[in-house]
């Protein structure tokens, strides 16, 4: 075929392409394109352009757009071209619109009608072109317009159409999951399509669906495993081979799916072990594609319930990757190592030198991946080296996106594993200095709090030492030009609190520095505010200590300037400062006790000092306050809400059906409103707001006539994120507490399951460190680095890794981890625990029995975990499996009996093709007219599909005579 088969392009166009090709600079290219745009603008408005010419113009528009220029002036012509009856033109039109328009473009509405028509075309090529456009252009709002037709096309006789229809549905699912949620069974059916291409395409939406909701697809594990097995055994048509590998792209998709399904599910995982092991063994490791499959296998192995044998083969493959000369394979090796390291921490050890080589590689991509790995294997023993390296690298790069990422990693590691306060503060200073603008403000607050509280040591001298060293370091840094705002805030706060605390620096020295900061960064109000507040503190401490306050002239002028500031916040601070200075020592001691930043401030919520005022008001005839919980009806209402909120139907974008008629409230009013003024307003206002977007049937409670609680409110459609309405907050809703509990319970078992394998793993497999042999030719510098990264003595490390999560969680170097956990128990107002394996363990301890030794608790947990988790899984699988299998494969099963007559020859062979094809007959027989079609097709003989099947069949028989195993397909067909 080749290039001659195209349309005769005009000389003009060829010249254009040529001149662009010869352009020496971007500027010259731009000039040419701009000229072309002018030409086209002129030409397109000419009357009576021949269609052939028009087609070329459209292609030229595509060309312009491809080169990065705006061709929107011609979009409408492309849209018009899709309406054309000529296939060539229509195809060009569709190509152009899919390239031009994003899904939110206004012109799409003009194409929807054409697409609808074309989807019904009896020419499958037109249908294909339309489906291509559907995938790109149809947006959430227009999905309903084409959905029925696309679903119908799932049963089209051309596999190319079925495939594209599947992909279109997949796209719909990505855009609006609710729009196709009722079509899941279609995907399951297509999995049994007799065309491997369609089957392969179906894996895409299934992967997505499973990603969202693993549990409802557990019944398909058997099918996926059996498909993967057959694919790996070379049972698909040869056309799907890629570099002698059997359908590797399909294998990879299946492995991704299995990884999801087997994650944390022992029973499902066990079904996969054999096939994954087979692929490990069989896969050709000399080709890129083979390695891609092997890499996916490793990912799968590291995700499913661990199996020692598979982990071993995975480790072998990783070793091969890392030893390879190819950077690509090294990269994958590092990545895979990062995945496996959680399951068997000891495997990193044998690769330490390879890892260090990658870290020092000039290739940035590889280096970053290695940092990712190091991040995963950081412990308190190697945190200093790793964070140091990360910061060095962070300073050396310009890419802000990656900088932010690596900064957050540094901070996270430093907070988690800091060996000493000193180190932590120094590290943070470096981070703030070089990338302060990229750091989350919370990090700064944590740092301040750390300096204020220390790590919870009792030792007072360590405390003060920490603070004075912080003050020292900040006074050193403060003069540096252009410090990030966040860092300056920290500096100001620390100087204000502790600048004069140890008596080393005089108040005037510190205040002078603070004024300098406020002056140097006069655009930054936040910094200025921090500086002024720091000044207030310094002066207050001076006054309290009985010293005379000398206000430096520059401070004086700063205060004056700020008291006339446009910012009310700054103004108020300035006035407060002046007020404080005017007070005597006694009063100052009261309002600003020194070193009180971390003291608890007690607030009497009853606000007793207002009692007089209230009594006076009541005497004057005011209504007494009724607590919310005692107001009638309220508790009811809140109960109702909390119930309804739990089952919300998925919301749709636009509604295409008519609204229901409004109903009268069914329950008559029983309780009259108590106090019109307060309660009614409180309720009537929020409710209608919740109902927005809800289709119907709500009689809006108006404040004049409604007994608020008794009216049944329709709350479906209310989104959970709004939470419970505020008025019920004082009386905890009945469901809140238990649900919290179950959440805890669940997470605990989750966390624990993933801990256990790691531990058992550690005991079962031990690797002989291969270091000895390598050490010979290694430079001492690298060895040193290796030792510091991977821990000098392997035994010690291994022990701590055996200890699993809890040790590190409980006492990262006796640091803040422990401290925070203690505090967490003490403080009732607890934040929701972060999704961390380690922390979850702690929270349970806190909730179940606050004063029991956390170690013992954890040990107990670990022992229990194995049985409980596995029984859970059993229950789960059994419960979901049975009905689902019946539902999804019920019709497939009947298909076998049904189609048996026609297909007896094929049916005997138990390969993928045959089983699947009998399944399709059923589908078509559902369709009524389709049955004769498919039979006709078979009787007709020389047909493309038939030929394909025969081809497969013959090869099947020839290559694999031992495959007459009827059991294989039992799995698939239930």
């Amino acid at each position: 075929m080749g290039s001659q088969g195209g349309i005769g392009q005009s000389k003009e166009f060829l010249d254009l392409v040529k001149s662009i090709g010869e352009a020496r600079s971007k500027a010259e290219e731009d000039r040419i394109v701009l000229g072309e745009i002018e030409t086209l603008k002129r030409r397109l408005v000419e009357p009576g352009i021949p269609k052939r010419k028009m087609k070329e113009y459209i292609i030229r528009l595509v060309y312009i757009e491809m080169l990065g220029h705006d061709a929107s002036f011609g979009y409408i012509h492309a849209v018009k071209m899709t309406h054309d009856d000529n296939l060539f033109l229509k195809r060009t039109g569709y190509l152009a619109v899919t390239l031009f328009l994003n899904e939110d473009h206004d012109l799409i509405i003009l194409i929807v009608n054409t697409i609808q028509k074309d989807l019904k075309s009896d020419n499958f090529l037109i249908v294909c072109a339309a489906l291509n456009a559907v995938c790109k252009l149809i947006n959430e709002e227009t999905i309903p317009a084409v959905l029925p037709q696309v679903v119908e096309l799932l049963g089209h006789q051309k596999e190319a159409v079925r495939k594209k229809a599947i992909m279109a549905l997949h796209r719909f699912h990505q855009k609006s999951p609710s729009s196709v949620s009722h079509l899941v069974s279609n995907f399951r059916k297509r999995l049994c399509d007799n065309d491997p291409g369609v089957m392969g395409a179906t894996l895409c939406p299934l992967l997505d669906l499973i990603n969202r909701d693993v549990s409802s697809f557990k019944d398909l594990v058997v099918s996926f495993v059996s498909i993967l097995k057959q694919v790996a055994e070379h049972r698909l048509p040869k056309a799907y081979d890629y570099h002698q590998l059997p359908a590797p792209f399909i294998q990879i998709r299946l492995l991704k799916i299995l990884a999801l399904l087997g994650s944390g599910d022992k029973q499902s995982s066990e079904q996969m072990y054999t096939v994954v092991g087979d692929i490990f063994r069989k896969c050709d490791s000399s080709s890129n594609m083979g390695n891609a499959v092997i890499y996916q296998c490793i990912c799968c192995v590291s995700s499913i319930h661990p199996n020692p044998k598979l982990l071993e083969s995975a480790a072998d493959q990783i070793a091969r990757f890392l030893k390879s000369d190819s950077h690509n394979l090294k990269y994958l090796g590092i990545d895979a190592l990062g995945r496996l390291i959680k399951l068997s921490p000891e495997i990193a050890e044998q690769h330490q030198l390879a890892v260090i080589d990658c870290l020092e590689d000039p290739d940035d991509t590889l280096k970053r991946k290695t940092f990712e790995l190091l991040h995963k294997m950081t412990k308190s023993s190697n945190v200093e080296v790793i964070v140091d390296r990360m910061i060095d690298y962070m300073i050396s790069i310009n890419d802000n996106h990656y900088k932010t990422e690596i900064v957050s990693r540094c901070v996270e590691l430093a907070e988690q594993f800091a060996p000493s306060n000193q180190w932590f503060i120094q590290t943070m200073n470096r981070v703030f200095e070089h990338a302060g603008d990229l750091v989350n403000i919370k990090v700064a607050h944590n740092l301040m709090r750390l300096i204020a509280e220390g790590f919870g040591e009792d030792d007072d001298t360590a405390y003060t030492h920490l603070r004075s060293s912080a003050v020292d370091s900040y006074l050193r840094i403060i003069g540096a030009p252009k410090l990030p705002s966040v860092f300056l805030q920290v500096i100001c706060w620390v100087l204000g609190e502790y600048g004069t605390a140890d008596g080393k620096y005089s108040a005037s020295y510190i205040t002078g520095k603070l004024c300098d900061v406020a002056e140097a960064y006069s655009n930054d109000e936040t910094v200025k505010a921090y500086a002024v507040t720091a000044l207030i503190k310094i002066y207050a401490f001076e006054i309290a200590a009985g010293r005379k306050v000398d206000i430096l002239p520059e401070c004086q002028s700063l205060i004056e300037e700020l008291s006339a500031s446009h910012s009310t916040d700054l103004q108020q601070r300035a006035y407060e400062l002046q007020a404080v200075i005017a007070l005597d020592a006694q009063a100052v001691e009261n309002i600003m006790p020194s070193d009180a930043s971390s003291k608890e401030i007690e607030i009497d919520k009853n606000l007793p000092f207002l009692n007089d005022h209230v009594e006076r008001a009541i005497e004057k005839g005011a209504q007494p306050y009724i607590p919310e919980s005692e107001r009638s009806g309220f508790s009811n209402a809140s109960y109702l809400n909390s119930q309804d909120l739990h089952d919300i139907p998925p919301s749709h974008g636009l509604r295409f059906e008519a609204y229901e008629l409004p109903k009268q409230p069914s329950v008559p009013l029983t309780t009259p409103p108590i106090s019109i003024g307060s309660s009614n307003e409180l309720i009537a206002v929020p409710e209608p707001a919740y109902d927005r977007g809800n289709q119907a049937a709500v009689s809006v409670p108006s404040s004049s006539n409604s007994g608020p609680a008794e009216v049944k409110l329709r709350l479906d459609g209310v989104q959970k994120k709004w939470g419970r309405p505020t008025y019920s907050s004082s009386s905890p809703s009945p469901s809140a507490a238990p649900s919290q509990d179950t959440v805890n319970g669940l997470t605990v078992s989750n966390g624990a399951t993933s801990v256990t394998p790691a531990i058992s793993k550690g005991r079962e497999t031990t690797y002989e460190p291969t270091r000895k042999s390598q050490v010979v030719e290694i430079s001492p510098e690298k060895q040193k680095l290796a030792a510091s990264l991977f821990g000098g003595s392997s035994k010690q490390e291994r022990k701590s890794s055996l200890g699993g999560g809890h040790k590190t969680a409980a006492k990262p170097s006796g640091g803040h981890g422990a401290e925070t956990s203690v505090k967490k128990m003490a403080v009732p107002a607890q934040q929701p625990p972060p999704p961390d394996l380690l922390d979850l363990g702690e929270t349970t301890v806190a909730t179940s029995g606050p004063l029991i030794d956390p170690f013992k608790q954890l040990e107990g947990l670990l022992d229990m975990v194995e049985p409980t988790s596995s029984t859970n899984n059993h229950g789960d699988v059994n419960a979901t499996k049975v009905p689902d299998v019946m539902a999804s494969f019920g019709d497939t099963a009947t298909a076998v009996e049904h189609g048996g007559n026609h297909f007896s020859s094929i049916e005997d062979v138990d390969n993928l093709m045959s089983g699947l094809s009998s399944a399709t007959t059923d589908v078509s027989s559902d369709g009524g007219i389709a049955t004769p079609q498919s039979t006709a097709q078979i009787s007709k003989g020389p047909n493309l599909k038939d030929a394909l099947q025969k081809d497969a069949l013959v090869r099947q028989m020839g290559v694999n005579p031992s495959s007459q195993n009827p059991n294989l397909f039992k799995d698939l067909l239930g």
Partner: protein
Amino acid sequence: KSNTHGPTSSKNRWLFLSNACFFSSPNRTEISARIILPLGLPSPELGTAGAYSQRPSSIMIHFVCLISRQGKVRLTKWYSTYTQKERSKAIRELSGVILSRGPKLCNFVDWKGYKVVYKRYASLYFCMCIDDEDNELEALEVIHHFVEILDRYFGSVCELDLIFNFHKAYYILDELLIAGELQESSKKTVAKLISAQDSLVEVAKEEASSISNIIAQATK
């Protein structure tokens, strides 16, 4: 004047202190109300050990572009939504990074939290942007798959073929990838479809007659 000016009662002290510690951010409560967050706030990817961090999404190709060694664009196809401005910027940035990379380095580069996988064929770079968590080597083979199909179609393809027949390359790409996914992994099938489209009219006629035949039979 406002009551904060005469700070004598304990209430005022609280006002002051809370101001002194925190005033501008929603984090005010964190310290003043003594709600202790764990210092080690784990990032989600670290925190959820096994399950989450390793979850692959379906392979999603965000865009494909072909760039010549001189940095000229030969083909672009965007599967995710980008404005024209973002497109130009992406191409500019990527060609800067990719064209300057040495020959022995990995075929992957980080780009704004995504991975761009590229491969050079003669004077042409094929680039493909995928999710960070995805299988890079697979994407590399998708590129190669595409090149093999082009090669088969044009008969030992060269850059000139693509320069003058870029629209054909688009048609081929449309049969290979759809909605950012690999839709067909059989070269034969793709080739068949493309040739069917090239001889569009004849096939269409034949199809029409055979379908009407079938319908005629069915309705008899």
